[in-house]
């Protein structure tokens, strides 16, 4: 599917530029989008729903049955009233011919009772009961099919979305707000699901029910029918506009609420700053402002709802008054039976609920096309980094990494410019330079998180672009500066790259990363939960965990991307000593701005503005007396410097 999904949007630039505005203003962009695309979105969701043929079929049958049963009830009630008014000239006064026929057939079979009115009432009561049960059962099937198709599509979208996110390259993830991606995966999938569940099948039901109901009423008596239906357009219009108004107001409210959340979150996160400046009053003012803004919008919400509900109610009851008046006059004139009048009243109350739901349905469409559009936008992006069709696995012969004149830029300007170097097994290359010089870019190019703009990178002579991503990432271990802890036990976190690893490998990796003692002291040892809902680790402990995670996999090439910044020098020393065995036949790259981390490297590259400005061993660089030497003076020998 990877190849099938995309190709509408070319490279990474279109992909990110399309999405970034959403990331910046997730709230505003999620307003209902009405345009040509919404039809496409709607078609695509419908196509997904069509996969579930059996359930759709049952659902549709249930819809027709439910409508039929639903509409039969007012007729039966009307007929019951007629039947209860007794006989006129010896025969039943029931106006509804269909019910009469039913009664006649039944009496033909079972025989007439002593009192035809009573017999008719009993038959009608039985029919009412059967119709009600039928209505309940068909409504059950209709609702369940709708919900279950919705759930299945929700599941499918969720899986597709998850898979797509895993495939999308770093450049994509770097350009979007994670919160926005999460919202899409949760809220938007839910939006599409609700659309399928409430709008898709339900709309067929509403059309069938309201259409037939209106037809029946109008064909019965045009004037009375029109009066009793007079509430329909008003309520439908009102329900729809109010829903849409509530929706857009809801989005503004959500925006204000997230602003309020930010105020509270920052206040609590920065509580020490707040306390130290004794700025509680200032903070309360900020809170009140944000809070009152939400209140104002929430009140608008309440107001819309109140006027809407009461207006819809009054419209219905005014039509009812009209029916009572006009219908009443007709009854007095003998043109209408009481049963028929009752039938109109009962029809009205049966139509009220569905007409109100039109608003819900329209809202469902608006929400469905907006949320679906946002989802498909992500699903349709082609990952800029993916395996070539004929890619083979990387074949490691000895594990030599080479950069051949590599240039790279995220946008126009180059963060790396013509960088060449080679790391052989057993050797270590250290990379140092000011922030933004391009050090981390190198770390990201090795596992092919990005592709170079110019030049190429090889491992054992094979261009990274020609081999499978999976095999590269198995061969290359990057220890990142920012370690993400998963909500899981320490053990599962260390074994993240190979969840099948035996205990002793996890333990020895942790020990090598100088984390073993700490883990042993934890209340649950290796089973202690860490991450968002567990024990929180300090920066240095997280970095050590990250090192353990990488070295457990024993990758052929190891890149330390400033991964010891938060670890004290002595512990770092111990980690290095513990790793000598592992790195003795592996290529290692150490990126750091702490010289003590890399001065033992076989070759040190000093990078500035994407170029290698100095290279050589520690001693060579010191004698050169360039940038490296300056840095050394500043970092390592401050005491001597001060005494000069």
């Amino acid at each position, binding site marked *: 599917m990877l190849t099938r999904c995309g190709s509408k949007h070319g490279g990474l630039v279109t992909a990110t530029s399309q999405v970034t505005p959403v990331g910046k203003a997730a709230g505003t962009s999620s307003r209902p989008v009405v345009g040509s695309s919404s039809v496409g979105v709607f078609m695509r969701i419908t196509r997904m729903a069509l996969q579930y043929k059996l359930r759709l079929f049952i659902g549709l049958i249930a819809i027709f049955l439910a409508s039929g049963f639903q509409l039969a009830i007012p007729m039966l009630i009307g007929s019951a009233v007629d039947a209860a008014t007794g006989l006129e000239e010896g025969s039943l006064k029931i106006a509804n011919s269909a019910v009469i026929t039913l009664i006649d057939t039944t009496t033909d079979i079972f025989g007439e009772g002593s009192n035809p009115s009573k017999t008719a009432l009993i038959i009608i009561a039985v029919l009412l009961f059967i119709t009600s049960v039928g209505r309940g059962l068909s409504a059950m099937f209709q609702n369940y099919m709708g919900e279950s198709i919705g759930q299945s599509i929700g599941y499918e979208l969720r899986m597709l979305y998850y898979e797509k996110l895993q495939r999308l390259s770093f450049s994509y993830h770097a350009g979007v707000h994670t919160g926005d991606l999460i919202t899409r995966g949760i809220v938007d999938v839910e939006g599409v699901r609700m659309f399928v569940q409430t709008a898709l099948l339900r709309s067929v039901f509403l059309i069938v029910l309201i259409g037939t109901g209106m037809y029946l009423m109008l064909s019965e008596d045009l004037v009375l029918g029109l009066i009793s239906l007079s509430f329909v357009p008003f309520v439908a219009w009102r329900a729809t506009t109010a829903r849409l108004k509530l929706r857009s107001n809801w989005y503004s409210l959500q925006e204000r609420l997230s602003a309020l959340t930010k105020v509270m979150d920052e206040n609590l996160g920065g509580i020490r700053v707040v306390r130290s400046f004794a700025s509680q009053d200032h903070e309360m003012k900020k809170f009140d402002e944000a809070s009152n803004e939400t209140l104002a919008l929430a009140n608008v919400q309440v107001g819309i709802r109140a006027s809407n509900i009461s207006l819809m109610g009054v419209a219905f009851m005014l039509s009812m008054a009209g029916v009572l008046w006009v219908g009443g006059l007709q009854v007095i004139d003998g043109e209408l039976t009481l049963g028929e009048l009752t039938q109109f009243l009962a029809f009205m109350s049966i139509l009220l609920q569905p007409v109100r739901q039109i608003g819900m349905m329209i809202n469902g469409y608006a929400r469905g096309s907006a949320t679906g559009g946002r989802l498909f936008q992500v699903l349709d992006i082609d990952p800029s980094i993916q395996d070539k069709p004929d890619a083979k696995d990387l074949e490691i012969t000895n594990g030599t990494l080479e950069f051949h004149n590599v240039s790279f830029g995220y946008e126009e300007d180059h963060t790396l410019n013509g960088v060449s170097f080679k790391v052989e097994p057993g050797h270590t290359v250290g990379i140092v330079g000011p922030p933004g010089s391009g050090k981390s870019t190198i770390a990201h190019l090795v596992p092919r998180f990005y592709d170079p703009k110019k030049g190429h990178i090889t491992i054992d002579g094979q261009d990274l672009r020609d081999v499978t991503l999976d095999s590269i990432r198995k061969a290359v271990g990057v220890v990142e500066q920012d370690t993400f802890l998963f909500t899981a036990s320490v053990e599962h976190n260390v074994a993240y790259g190979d969840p099948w690893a035996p205990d002793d490998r996890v333990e020895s990796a942790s020990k090598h990363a100088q984390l073993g003692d700490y883990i042993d002291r934890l209340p649950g040892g290796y089973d202690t939960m860490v991450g968002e809902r567990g024990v929180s680790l300090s920066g240095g402990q997280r970095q050590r965990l990250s090192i353990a995670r990488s070295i457990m996999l024993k990758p052929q090439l190891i890149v330390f991307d400033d991964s010891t910044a*938060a670890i004290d020098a002595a512990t770092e020393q111990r980690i290095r000593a513990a790793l000598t065995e592992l790195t003795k036949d592996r290529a290692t790259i150490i990126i750091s701005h702490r010289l003590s981390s890399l001065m033992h490297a076989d070759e040190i590259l000093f990078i500035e503005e994407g170029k290698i400005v100095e290279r050589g061993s520690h001693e060579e660089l010191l004698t050169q007396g360039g940038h490296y030497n300056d840095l050394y003076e500043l970092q390592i020998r401050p005491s001597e410097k001060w005494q000069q």
Partner: protein
Amino acid sequence: MTDRHIHERSHEIPPKASIKLGPTLDEEVFGEAFNGQVVGRFMKYIAAYKVLLWVAITAVGVFTVSSITIPLIVKNVFDDALKDGAGDRSKLATMVVVFLVAVGFNFVANYFQELIVGRIAERILIDMRRAMYEHLQRVSLSFMDKTEIGKLMSRLQGDVAALQEFLQTAVFAIGDIVLLIGIIGAMIWLDWRLGLMTLTVVPILLIIRIIWLPYARQSFLRARVTSSIVSGALAENINGIRAVQGMSREYVNYDLFDIRATDNLKAANKASKFGVMMLPIVDTLTGTAMAIVVIIGGFFVLGGTVELGVMVAFVLFVQRFFDPIRALTMHYNVLQRAMASGERIFEVIDVPVDIKNKPNAIHPEEIDGSISFENVTFGYVENQPILKDINFEVKPGETVALVGPTGSGKTSTTALVHRFYDIWEGSVKVGGHDVRDVTQESLGEHVSMVLQEPFLFSGTIFENIIYAKEGATREDVVAAAQAVGAHEFIMKLPDGYETELEQRGGNLSLGQRQLLSFARAIVADSKILVLDEATASIDSYTEMLIQQALERLMEGRTGMVIAHRLATIRGADRIIVLQDGRIVEQGNHDELMANGGLYSRLYSMNYASFDDIPDELIAQATKAARESST
């Protein structure tokens, strides 16, 4: 089809991978639906809107009465105006007018009940959140230290929202009960025999609902829990995408996610089965009730004991009386949630405030900038003092560096100057006043703190520098930025001082954030500055800028610095060396070097920072220093 999954699931769960993410079923409490204490305290918040509440209750009452009246008027239309062969136009007209009046009442009451109840609920939501938030501004830092922000946030948001829902529900639940009683009353009043017979279905529905409810709730809850597990897994994968891709965990994660998503799909389908199950049950009972009305009512009408209109009114009532029952059983859930939320909210509000202004606390306008610690003993946990009998004095304008290994008590010492905590013994004086005798506001005014981790708020750079300082001008802000050398980079930003900062200042480097926090302290212009120097290594250029800024910052102020950089330490007027909560040495750099104590030994180890020195070496140095002094 258009979309298919990347590969077939292996269905093998790796031994070292977690499936559960998010709450388990047991964690979601099945609490009580009524807790007198919670409701009682909640009432106090409602009491503030007593008048409005009465209006709302009246509106609910009027609405209910008019709702019941309408079918009764229809009954009268049938019986009085349209009676067989005795049609009466003027009576019909009167009835229709009465009907319209009832509709009018119904409309107005409906509008006001919705509006007022909604508004009160929104207002109380704000009030409760505010009460909690304001309290959090005052509770002791030791509470904040050990409480996760996420937990507090969920109380400020989720729990408050649950209570709001409760209030809305409570009013409507009362409305439902009134309506139900009204309908039952009206039916019995119209014809008690027919009424009682029709009402037999009510207890049947109630019993079925009571049996159904626990199972249904369990399945709804499961659907909710599995759904939040799926959401949690998705969010985690997005946040940790680098680790996922870097370690090629895609396939394993896909499988694990599939397990969770499938679990959720099953749970959701089961929940919806429970949901739709009620439809035929309610409809069967409605059908039964209608059949009773038609047969019994019809026979009564035929026999002349009951008027036709009664039968019509009954039909109209039957269609309505299941709604309140259905709603009422649903409300049970809301009640349960609200009680649990209420408990959690009041738990926060009940956290005692340890540090309060004395009733007669003074607020000195000017202080001289001296600090003194007299026999100070302090700790966070009983019987485990962090500081032991500390004595020292800082003269106005002097800069003192606090130095010592991790855990020696440096941070605690600085926190006490601002009275973040109250000490166990002794006294801390600022400007000659015991910190417990002055207001906390005055301490905030006279003592500025710069934290190790610069914390920036979202907003513009200008807003961050001026922060809470009243009366500061734009010139003050620019001057402060210039003084610390931040002006240059600020002007290079797209909107200069008006540049919006991303979350926590994410669009700035650590060094730049540091400089802004210095500028903020300069604008605050306090006599005393307490500074915790950053340990994170920054590049050498920024490092230099920060050192210069630090000097400007200290000018004319009393300074107390937790120093990590040797340059800072050497530049201090005096160095206080702490170890295990005691002062082991003090003096300037040269004096301490000449002393040959712990400081000189640590210093000569050539570490860039004292915090980098491994424990063993410190232990050795300590031992050596002790031996040489005896």
